């Protein structure tokens, strides 16, 4: 009974407060990450040699270093050159750039998987380059990239907890404060874990349905 009251009066309100911050971190980061990913992925396939190398380097660096290091760089490092980001802004910048690098992998893979014949057929019909991209290539490629990109967003949901480490108090941060205050770590962290599980499962379920909605016969993607 006691536990339940503690949960109702303390845990749930703080977690809800943190939850809102988490969501306001995740949504813009996911959106920006996808945009960056589509742009970077396209550049890595269709860009000029120099641009391609540059974007490849961006992806290698952001996929090869821990997100924590990147967050610290944005939050603690940038003031060194006179740029001050709030914890929230540093987190969104960090998440978007990191997520974009991963997203670009899926977009690139999907673009590369499109057969030459598709482009030849479009050109033969007199499509301009942009028309071809818009109505032939992207509709196919984005379908192929969807499972990977969706998975990346699920990762982002989980990794948004790292914002706590640059003092952006979202769900995990609220939980930490609450737990240390009442010294009830197990209960509080189980509760916050459950919140994330629900969030991740909902996102997974939504993604699954989206894939089903968008699926075209004979266009199934097999695994990763």
């Amino acid at each position, binding site marked *: 009974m006691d536990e339940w009251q503690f949960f109702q009066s303390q845990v749930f309100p703080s977690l809800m407060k943190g939850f809102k911050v988490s969501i306001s971190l995740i949504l813009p980061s996911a959106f920006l990450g996808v945009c960056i990913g589509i742009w970077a992925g396209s550049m890595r396939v269709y860009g000029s040699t120099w641009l391609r190398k540059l974007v490849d380097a961006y992806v*290698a*660096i952001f*996929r*090869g*270093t*821990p*997100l*924590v*290091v*990147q967050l*610290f*760089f944005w939050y*603690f*490092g*940038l*003031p*060194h*050159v006179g740029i001050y980001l709030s914890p929230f802004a540093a987190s969104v910048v960090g998440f978007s750039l990191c997520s974009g690098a991963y997203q670009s992998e899926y977009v690139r893979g999907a673009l590369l998987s499109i057969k030459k014949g598709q482009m030849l057929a479009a050109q033969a019909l007199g499509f301009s380059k942009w028309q071809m991209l818009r109505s032939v290539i992207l509709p196919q490629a984005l379908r192929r990239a969807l499972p990977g990109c969706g998975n990346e967003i699920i990762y982002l949901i*989980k*990794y*948004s*907890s*790292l914002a*706590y*480490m640059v003092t952006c108090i979202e769900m*995990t941060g609220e*939980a*930490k404060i609450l*737990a240390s205050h009442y010294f009830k*770590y*197990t209960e509080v*962290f*189980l509760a*916050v*874990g459950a919140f*994330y*599980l629900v969030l*991740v*499962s909902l996102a997974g379920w939504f993604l699954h349905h989206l894939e089903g909605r968008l699926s075209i016969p004979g266009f199934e993607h097999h*695994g990763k």
Partner: protein
Amino acid sequence: MMPEGLIAVFQALPYILQGSFVTIGIVLGAMGFGLAMGIPLALGQVYGSPPVRVAVRIYVWFFRGVPLLVLLFLFYFGFCSLLDINLSAFTVSVAVLGLISAAYQSQIFRGAIASLPAGQLKAARALGMSDAKAVWFIILPQALRLSIPAWSNEYSIVLKDSAVAYALGVAEIMARTHFVATRTYQHLPLYLAAGTIYLILTYAGTRGLRLLENKVRIRGYSR
């Protein structure tokens, strides 16, 4: 980059590099733990009875769904004091990263096992092998070979995740870098240096696994 930044990096480098041994320790421990647990989990999910399969799915769902940081706090501050066991932050980090990696590795192995043709198991049984022998001598040697590329990917994920152990105060690369940075106020160059160390470790590890893959490659074998 400014000279005092470079000086700070060079002065701190030995100290930070010592942390890379801690990082490598965490990664090796977690990967090994994850391997030892991931194989039985995968076998349970492929060949197990329905309750076993459900149990594995729940395990995987849980450890893939809850963020690492939350699990670290839950195990270190929660379970350890609840059960009154005294584990070091290092041990808890290895255990938690290992439990998570086991969930991911089990799915790697499951996929590899599923990609083997059913005839392999049938032929083994037709020779009178028990299921255990068939799995040990026929299925696993093939599945593990097929898993190396995905395993190499998993290595780079665990390596990067190990930086989160900083939150428990484990003196790995990240923690040491931050410690030096707050004293010298040279955050930017120091984090760049830390990032470079991680890049090198990622590269070295995936390179090593590529060598392993070539070493155990079977002529003409691919699936």
